[in-house]
Each structure stands twice: as structure tokens, then as C-alpha cells.
């Protein structure tokens, strides 16, 4: 008998574990409105703002491709690679409301040749790696049309 593995975030608190509509979790300065991902909770980095007040926010699930590439070779640790290593696509996606660009792997099956700047992408959750006890999830970008 095999036990079901636990599902855990590879980076705890960085995103919701909502299967259908996951969101990256950031913070927003309650004074100037600057967003932070990863979360900032001490003081606002906008040099024109002196605030120390933040609210946790879910970042937009959709954005537009700013640029993209892939990883043809296995990265060094702490990356945990499958054996044999499977190359993956990477996208930099621009979030309109937050006015920030967020990097992430692209879901399996989508290649560099399938992407274009400006293409709409949405956030999904997928396995980053597995340990004996748990399946570790990360966010990935997926073309909205796919």
C-alpha cells in the first residue's frame, strides 16, 4: 500500500494552494499602493513613502508575456532535478495592476516556439519536485489559450 503524499508549497506562504484559481501572495503598502512580491512587511521601499503598514494581497492571476526562454541544462542545487533532467520553459510575465514582472516556469508541453511577447498567461500550480513524504508545488505560467 502506498500512502498519498502530502501536498505542500515549495516556498511556504508565497502562493495560495487553491487548485483551480491559485494566486501569488504579496503585500501592498497601505499608504502609497506599491505591491511587493515576495512579501514586504517591515517598511516601504518606495523612497518617496515612509509607511510601515502593509496588507496581504493576492496578486493578479493573469498577465502578459514580457519575455521567455528555457533551461536546456540542469541548474545547480538547491534546484531538485528529475533524473533524467527534463528541460523546461521559463516566462517573465507582466502584471498590469501591480506593474511588475514575475518570473516562473511554464507548464510542461509549452515550448519557446509557442510563446510571443504580449501573449496572455495565467497562473497555475504544478509540482516543482517530490520528496519521500511530500509533493512540493510551485507556481507556473500557462498560456490562456492552451
Amino acid at each position, binding site marked *: 500500500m502506498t500512502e498519498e503524499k502530502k501536498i505542500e508549497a*515549495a*516556498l*511556504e506562504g508565497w502562493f495560495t494552494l487553491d487548485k483551480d484559481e491559485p494566486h501569488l501572495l504579496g503585500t501592498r*503598502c497601505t499608504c*502609497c*499602493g*506599491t*505591491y*511587493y*512580491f*515576495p512579501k514586504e512587511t517591515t517598511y516601504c*521601499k*518606495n*523612497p*518617496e*513613502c515612509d509607511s510601515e503598514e502593509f496588507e496581504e494581497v493576492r496578486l493578479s492571476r493573469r498577465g502578459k508575456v*514580457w*519575455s*521567455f*526562454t*528555457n*533551461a*536546456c*541544462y540542469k*541548474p*545547480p*542545487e*538547491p*534546484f*531538485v532535478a528529475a533524473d533524467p533532467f527534463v528541460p*523546461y520553459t*521559463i516566462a*517573465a510575465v507582466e502584471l498590469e*495592476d*501591480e*506593474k*511588475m*514582472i*514575475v*518570473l*516562473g*516556469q511554464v507548464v510542461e508541453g509549452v515550448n*519557446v516556439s509557442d510563446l*510571443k*511577447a504580449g501573449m496572455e498567461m495565467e497562473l497555475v500550480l504544478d509540482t*516543482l519536485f517530490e520528496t519521500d513524504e511530500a509533493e512540493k508545488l*510551485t507556481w507556473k505560467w500557462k498560456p490562456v489559450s492552451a
Partner: protein
Amino acid sequence: MSNEIAILGVGMHPWGKWGKNFVEYGVKAARDAIKDAGVVWKDVQFVSGAATMRCGYPGYVAGATFAQALGWQGAEVNTSYAACASGSQALAAARAKILSGACDVALVVGADTTPKGFLAPQKGERPDDPDWVRFRLGITNPTYFALYARRRMEMYGDTQEDFGLVKVKNAQHGSTNPNARYKKQFTMEDINASAMVADPLRLMDICATSDGGAALIVSSVDYAKKIGRGDAVKVAAVSTVTPTFASAIVEMPDIATDSAAAISAHSFRASLPKKAYEEAGISPSDVDLAEVYDLSTALEMDWMEDLQLCERGQAAQLVREGATTIGGRLPINTSGGLACFGEAVPAQAIAQVCELTWQLRGQAGDRQVEGAKVGITANQGLFGHGSSVIVKK
């Protein structure tokens, strides 16, 4: 002008994968620079070292390490660490000391011995470290270079062939440089045959890491005149500005840019030379040649635009026309650049100044740019470090 200092001497240890102690490279470069300057070691009052993080404690206190290796003679020391800009920060420290009147002659020196393979972060579970996080998620250094390269293709219509032209050009430049590690004149076929690392960049589009050392002897302009070197090449500006919030481009090692929801975004790369031009009181049109940090072939073209040497999106056209080749109207990376040297972090920014000095003196041999009077350098490293130095006749 009052904020200029003289470059009396330059020296380098050839770049390679020699596997020796970094101190050996720095001492060789320093002794060559001292000889080139026509001063004696005991006249050097300040040793400004660029640190290396890969060679243990002696690397952290590089200024003292080199001062001891050259023979203690009572000089004051300083060590700077600023990733790829370490050499420029060491130069800035020497310049401040000289311009304040606290010393006349200073040695600026950096050297490194690099490990093989990918530069990887420290071990352990460290999710608070952005460098650790991005490697955990599979985002390596070539990822960033490739994102910038692909952005050029998407925005300006640059091609992989254009990136290849940069490599062919730099290989040609470096082929006769005695200090370069790679001297082979690679062809477009060689480049197309090299393995894809991070699409659109192939192995030959991305620079290696190397061992190497570089050094400068700098002095006050008055001291240079006093020893009959009033015609020495001058440092006209050293810019080491940090970025301005919010970042416009996703920078290594970050996983995201800053949010520009409340304040406009700024390009860090473009801000570095801007300060240098202001400080030197010259404009981009005065520049005869530039040494830029070509961590990738495509990045060399980003730098050309950030240095305002051409309009945004026009760099590839200049490369295609041959304008950036020696003999063209705006030679870029006459040394061969990182493409031919590979990166030796604490030495690299100093090596850029060495090349400009040889060029402005007319001592660059086969690489000589005729009539060069003004040169500019640019580089950028991790955590908001970067620099741009202007050297003029």
C-alpha cells in the same frame, strides 16, 4: 578639471584557467603596473584592493593581501567588494583618497581564481535569500541573459545571427590580445554548432569564468606633472550609483521586478553611464570606444543603447554595418571583451580601464583604434552593483 586623476601605469596577468593562487595574478599585474608607471613600490601610499569571495580570508582582505605579497612598506589599505563593480569601487576609493589630498599615488588591484562550472549559491535551506530562491525555482544566470536577449528579438527584430555577429567580432578583436584567454577566431558556423543553453543563447553567446588579475597605478594630476607625466591618460569619471526604485527590468537574482504601481520604473543599466557623463562633463557623442560587460552577446547591444551610443533598438544595425568592429566608427570591446576573457570578477572592471588606457596611449598594437581620445566602461553585477568609468586623454 579638479576631479580628475592620472593613470600612470597599467598591468595585467593573462586570463585563463591557471588554477594558481589569486595572489600570484594580482602581484604580477601590480608589479607590471608599477613598472609601467615608472614609480617605485615604496612610493605607493595607498593600496586599494578588489575583494574575491571565492579564495577564503585572503580574498576578503585583498588590499592587505596584495600589500603584504608585494612587501609591507607601510602603505594604507582598503578592500572593496561590489560584485562585478568591485574594481571600480576600489578605483573610486583611491580617487577619493587622492582628491582629498590624503595621498598622491595609489595602487588599484584585483585578481581571482574561479571554480569550475555554474556559479551556485551557498548550501542549506535559505528561502529568505533571493539567490537561493531563484536557483530552487530553476532560474540560473543564463535565464536572465536569455530573457533580455529574447526581449530584443521581440521588440526590435534582432536575430540569433545578430548575436552571433557580436561573438565573431569580439573573437576577432581578442585574437591578438596577449592577455585574452580565448584567441580563436570563431566563425558563425562554430557558434551555430555550439549547444543551446537558454534559448535564444548558445554556449558561445555566454561568457565563461576565468582566473586573471589587473592593476592600475593612479595619482594626482599634480604628482603626474611633477614626475614628467602630465600627459598621462586621466580618469574623468567613476560612477557607482545604485538603482533607483522601481526596477524596470527583472534583475539577477530577483524573481520579480519592483512594482511601479506608485512610482515610475527606472533602468539601472542606463543610470550608470548617465552619472558618468554628467561627472565628466562630456556627451555620448564624444565617446570613441567602449568596453562593456558582455556577459552575453545580446547584452553587449543592450549596453550600447544604455550608454546612449545609439537609439534604443538600433544596436544590431551598428553591429551588422561593422561600426562596432575595430576600424569602424564606434569600436566596442576592442580587448575582445568577456567573450575572449571570461569573467574574473574583481579584476574585470580594472581590466576594462587597462584596455582603454592602452588605446588612448596608442599602445594597443593590432587592436589600436586610431585617434582614440575618450573611452567609457560599463558593468553590472548582483545586488544593485554596477559601474561606469570614463577615461580620456
